[in-house]
């Protein structure tokens, strides 16, 4: 039943030692609550090479989502800096970073097509041009024929596809995904994961993928970064040396299980 994957091939796309896509330097974050100050993240240093699919996992409340929001320029860290493609992040930078949220966060009064085109609209791209691009992207995520539906007419999985298409809309080199499949059921999550890999394979963007799902993390990523509980620190960076393209059979392999177990034991010790 299990395939022998004890000696997996080296992951595809060898990384040239060029400039990292994301460079996180000394990020520390504190915030105030009713009961005093909380140290959420402590001295995070991470360098992510272009084209890598990197997972971010950790116990609940470890600040992995906050870290992603800092990369997106939505939250300002107390200390440290983040460079994306060599330039510091001081605020939202939609040309460099696409963001996909846990909630699909679609504008309910806009159609699927208009939602995908929304970032381009904000940049003042003419209607015909942005809608042509959005249509292409909807086809890419498998939503041909759903262009004129409103979000409430779409299933949870479809909404998330629209959100992913929107993330790709400005063709940013980096895609940040904050538990994008967390609100979906198991089957939809698996299907969408495969779809995401298929699209990613075509474009080879750098992806940072925050998730709770360890199976999902191992299945999707080139590398999984494990954060510790509060304050969040980098515990380990685990290279997922499974070959690509990934297949469902791999999940049953011993190696897959070992990788998953390795991450789980790191996290479990935290809580």
């Amino acid at each position, binding site marked *: 039943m299990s395939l022998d994957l004890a000696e997996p091939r080296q992951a595809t796309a060898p990384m040239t030692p060029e400039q990292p896509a994301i460079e996180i330097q000394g990020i520390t974050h504190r915030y105030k609550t009713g009961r005093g100050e909380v140290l959420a993240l402590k001295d995070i240093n991470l360098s992510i090479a272009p084209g890598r699919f990197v997972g971010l996992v950790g116990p609940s409340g470890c600040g992995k989502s906050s870290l992603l929001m800092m990369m997106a320029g939505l939250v300002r860290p107390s200390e440290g800096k983040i460079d994306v493609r060599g330039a510091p992040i001081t605020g*939202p*930078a939609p040309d460099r*970073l696409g963001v996909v949220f846990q909630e699909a966060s679609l*504008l309910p009064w806009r159609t699927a097509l208009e939602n995908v085109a*929304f970032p381009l609209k904000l940049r003042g791209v003419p209607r015909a041009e942005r809608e042509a691009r959005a249509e292409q992207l909807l086809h890419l995520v498998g939503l041909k024929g759903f262009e004129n539906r409103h979000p*409430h007419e779409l299933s949870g999985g479809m909404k998330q596809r629209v959100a992913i298409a929107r993330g790709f809309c400005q063709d940013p080199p980096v895609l940040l995904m904050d538990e994008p499949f967390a609100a979906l059921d198991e089957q939809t999550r698996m299907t969408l994961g495969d779809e995401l890999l298929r699209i990613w394979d075509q474009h080879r963007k750098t992806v940072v993928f925050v998730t709770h799902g360890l199976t999902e993390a191992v299945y999707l990523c080139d590398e999984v970064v494990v954060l510790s509980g509060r304050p969040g620190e980098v515990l380990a960076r685990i290279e997922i040396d499974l070959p690509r393209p990934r297949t469902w059979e791999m999940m049953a392999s011993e190696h897959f299980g070992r990788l998953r177990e390795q991450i789980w034991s790191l996290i479990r010790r935290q809580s």
Partner: protein
Amino acid sequence: MSATTASPARVEGWRLSPVALRWLCLAILLVLWEIAPRAGWVPQVILAAPSAALIDGLAEWDIFASALLFTFTEILISLCFAYGLGGLAGLVIGLSPFGRKVALPLASSLYALPLVVIYPVMTAWFGIGPASKIWFASLYGLFPVILSTAAGVQLVDRNLITMARAQGARFWPMITEVIIPAALPAVVSGLRVGGALVTVGVVVAEMLAATDGIGFLITQYRTMFQTPQVYFGILLVLVLAGGLDTLISRLERRASRWRPQQDHRHE
């Protein structure tokens, strides 16, 4: 629901459907209203028969029409003020969390006051012409617009705001693309309440002290004991208010067309 209530009616044979009962009661009421003054059960000066009200009212249609036009103009101007200022104030209050906490309770307390008491102040300041009506009615309609706009803005899905921020939306695109469309259904329902209050405000003001307008006309006919015309005037006000309400509720339906709970066959 309708099946369960309708079937015993058919079985027992004599029991009316609730809708039929409603219309029957209204019809009986109307007939009684028609007969009572005509048969002399109630003095005609107190209660005018509906037919008399219509006949006598329509006979003086010219007077009513010009008064109605006058009132309608006052209402339109007041609506502009109430909607414009109320919407703006609501937007500003709704956008700032602190402003919301400070201003909303104050605004809702003011909303609870019997505002009619300031009308004598308005007439003392602006005379008994249209100006005092417009000031009064604008103020009267202002608070529901402020309250519902602020509530609508406050309830905008935070996820959408974060998303738009991540896409690099600045202040104005955020307002026009996210906040206003999201708040619109709540805002329009406030416009509906505000519109009703503006209408009442103008008519009430005209009834109290005025030189023209439908409210003034009603009062004048009342002091002259021309009862049918009084009833006709009231009917006109109801039609005016109902028409305005229908218009705004149609707007309301359009504003929330994207909502799932709406019936999409209209699209």
